[in-house]
């Protein structure tokens, strides 16, 4: 099977092209050793199957980020048969910088001028043949969002894989550096190295730290005194050389575009310019951002819960009832019926009912991302964030955390400095994830049936506030030092591609379903067993194992107003998965986990005030195991993972107590 690698700048439409090429035939995993997402897909053509690997979007192929390392390692060591370089046609002058680095690698490249439709709308014209000749590689044009040019691209891919390509280097870095490259290349010949010698030579000269380390670890090279001399000479001039190499690459790009791209004298004023005048306005930008977030949650609630959630609940009830009837009819033993109807249908059913809500939330976040607004959110927030000692991009990882804290923590990778990143990781759990939504919804239904959207918005807002305050404290104490500079592209606003939004939603929702089927199922089973043992006790009673654990923990939560063993057990199971909180409450309060019975049970066990303090607790306390594991992986430290577990609990508890005690003083109940 042939392998095709996709590389390109962020916002070049790479993902859209990947989706257009592979359709639904995709698989998302992780690159070994790092947390960068690995997307693979397949397509068939003329009876052959082609494997497409979507590499992370990068501006460069240096050693500054994990994304870049993953991309260049796959290109050089993953043996792709061809590398597809996706280029934003409207921004070709910058995008070709990455291309120039691909051309240095000595691999087969096809340049795809994507978004050619947008370029045409902007009156930018291309001499495709000249472009291809100047670059020395085939050039294909596509409009991936409209699926135009895909067939031609596939045909070109097949041609290139089967054919030969002249891979002679075409960029000159000036006499001096060219000579040095030759010298180093010669000295490298015959040595066993993981990368092509010429590429290593270039990277050594431009001061790529990773390649320098690699070379110094190589015994054959470190014992070669001639090589050592050349290397130390190179090291002395790294800053000048780096600038020179960058300049030469851009010069090459200019040479190419000068004869192949014609831009109109006066750039066409785009919709983006007009929209940005308002959306990132000095004074209106922030209120508009808050309004957008508010509408997002209102909409999630209205469509996901009120409209679709009710239908889903009815469906679960009907299916559950049918299964029960079936089990009774085939004379199953009573404990099986109890386990299935109470444990499984009750537990998993409570979660299934909230799927529409999660679907809607992910779609809306996907639309924000795909439309280009997410970058504006980071831009708008940078000003405030900086005053708190945080980086504006932190806010993007926070918004992603609204869906799930696992990708939220992973999204902090765009932050380059360790300080910014550590803070962003540690405050992410305060961002209320989709699973916690289930908990609020039950309590809202019980106590605030008419103010759902507003309460939700407030909860999320408290989460953000706590995250920012904690972030500020961290930046003053644990992680001192300057926040790194803000550099970020603000891509043009684009109509979200439905396929991308759906794809992204499905990747997340299917993860949720998988969790419901595995982790949550296991948790539910264990909880159910603990709730009915030891034999003879009243199931779900205080005497059961579960009840005893709850009774043991419960006193801690007394000052917060919910010192019952049931609430304690609910919070306890929430550390396994937040979805399990509702399930557990359902089991211990109602014997079955669903709908109205649970809600009336909760109305009996909580008060409006304790429901609020409980919601605040669930919002802020220890994240689920999956998030803790991700924090461990991302920080590469068990210590920080444990820290994250403990300090979030302390903050959740403190805030819940604060809410309850203040509320009581003010006369609420």
């Amino acid at each position: 099977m042939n392998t095709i690698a996709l590389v390109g700048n962020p916002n070049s439409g790479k993902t859209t092209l990947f989706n257009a090429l592979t359709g639904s035939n995709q698989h998302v995993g992780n690159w070994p050793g790092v947390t960068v997402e690995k997307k693979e897909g397949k397509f068939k053509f003329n009876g052959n199957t082609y494997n497409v690997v979507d590499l992370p979007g990068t501006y460069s192929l240096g050693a500054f980020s994990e994304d870049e390392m993953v991309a260049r390692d796959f290109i050089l060591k993953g043996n792709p048969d061809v590398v597809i370089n996706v280029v934003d046609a409207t921004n070709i002058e910058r995008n070709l910088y990455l291309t120039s680095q691909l051309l240095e690698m000595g691999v087969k490249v096809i340049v795809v001028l994507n978004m050619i439709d947008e370029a045409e709308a902007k009156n930018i014209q291309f001499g495709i043949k000249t472009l291809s000749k100047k670059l020395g590689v085939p050039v294909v044009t596509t409009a991936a969002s409209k699926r135009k040019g895909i067939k031609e691209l596939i045909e070109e891919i097949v041609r290139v894989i089967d054919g030969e390509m002249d891979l002679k280097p075409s960029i000159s870095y000036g006499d001096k550096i060219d000579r040095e490259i030759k010298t180093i290349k010669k000295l490298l010949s015959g040595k066993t190295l993981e990368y092509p010698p010429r590429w290593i030579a270039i990277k050594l000269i431009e001061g790529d730290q990773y390649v320098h380390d690699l070379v110094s670890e190589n015994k054959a090279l470190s014992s070669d005194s001639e090589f050592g001399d050349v290397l130390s000479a190179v090291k002395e001039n790294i800053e000048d050389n780096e600038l020179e190499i960058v300049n030469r690459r851009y010069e090459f790009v200019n040479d190419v575009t000068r004869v192949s791209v014609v831009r109109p004298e006066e750039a066409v004023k785009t919709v983006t310019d007009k929209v940005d005048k308002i959306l990132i306005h000095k004074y209106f930008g922030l209120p508009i951002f808050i309004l957008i977030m508010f509408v997002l949650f209102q909409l999630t609630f209205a469509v996901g819960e009120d409209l679709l959630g009710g239908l889903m609940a009815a469906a679960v009830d009907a299916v559950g009832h049918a299964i029960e009837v079936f089990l009774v009819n085939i004379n199953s033993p009573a404990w099986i019926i109890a386990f299935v109807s109470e444990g499984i249908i009750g537990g998993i059913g409570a979660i299934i009912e909230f799927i529409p809500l999660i679907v809607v939330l992910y779609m809306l976040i996907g639309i924000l991302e795909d439309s280009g607004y997410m970058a504006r959110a980071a831009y708008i927030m940078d000003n405030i964030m900086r005053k708190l000692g945080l980086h504006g991009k932190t806010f993007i990882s926070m918004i992603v955390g609204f869906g799930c804290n696992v990708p939220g923590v992973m999204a902090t990778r765009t932050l380059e400095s360790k300080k910014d990143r550590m803070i962003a990781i540690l405050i992410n759990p305060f961002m209320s994830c989709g699973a916690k939504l289930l908990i609020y919804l039950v309590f809202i239904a019980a106590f605030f049936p008419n103010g759902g959207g507003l309460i939700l918005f407030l909860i999320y807002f408290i989460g953000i506030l706590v995250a920012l305050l904690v972030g500020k404290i961290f930046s003053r104490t644990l992680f001192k030092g300057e926040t790194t500079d803000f550099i970020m592209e603000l891509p043009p606003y684009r109509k979200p591609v439905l396929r991308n939004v759906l794809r992204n939603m499905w990747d997340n929702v299917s993860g949720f379903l998988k969790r419901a089927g595995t982790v949550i199922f296991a948790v539910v089973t264990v909880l159910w067993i603990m709730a009915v043992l030891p034999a003879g006790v009243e199931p779900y009673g205080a005497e059961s194992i579960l009840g005893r654990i709850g009774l043991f923990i419960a006193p801690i939560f007394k000052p917060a107003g919910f010192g019952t063993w049931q609430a304690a057990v609910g919070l306890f199971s929430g550390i396994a998965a937040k979805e399990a909180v509702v399930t557990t409450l359902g089991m211990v309060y109602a014997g079955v986990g669903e709908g109205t019975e649970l809600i009336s049970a909760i109305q009996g066990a909580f008060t409006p005030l304790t429901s609020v303090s409980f919601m605040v607790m669930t919002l802020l306390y220890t994240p689920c195991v999956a998030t803790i594991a991700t924090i461990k992986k991302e920080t590469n430290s068990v210590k920080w993972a444990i820290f994250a577990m403990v300090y979030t609990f302390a903050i959740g508890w403190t805030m819940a107590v604060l809410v309850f005690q203040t509320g009581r003083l003010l006369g609420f109940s």
Partner: protein
Amino acid sequence: MNLLLTQLKPGEKGKVKQIDACRRAARRLYEMGFNIGTNFEVVKNDIGPIIVSLFGHKVAVGRGLAQKIIVNQPD
């Protein structure tokens, strides 16, 4: 005449002359299109990062970093 990027007003054009930032930040800027000799236009310069248009594409640069970008008159 040499100016700092922060001194330009929205609508004013300039050309990147030199970047005095640390190696890493300078490198990022080059890769995002701020290579020496590139013409640009300032789109927004009030509060928060400065937005610059390079070939019609917007890049936001924090004020601290923008002060390390030395610019002069465009071609």
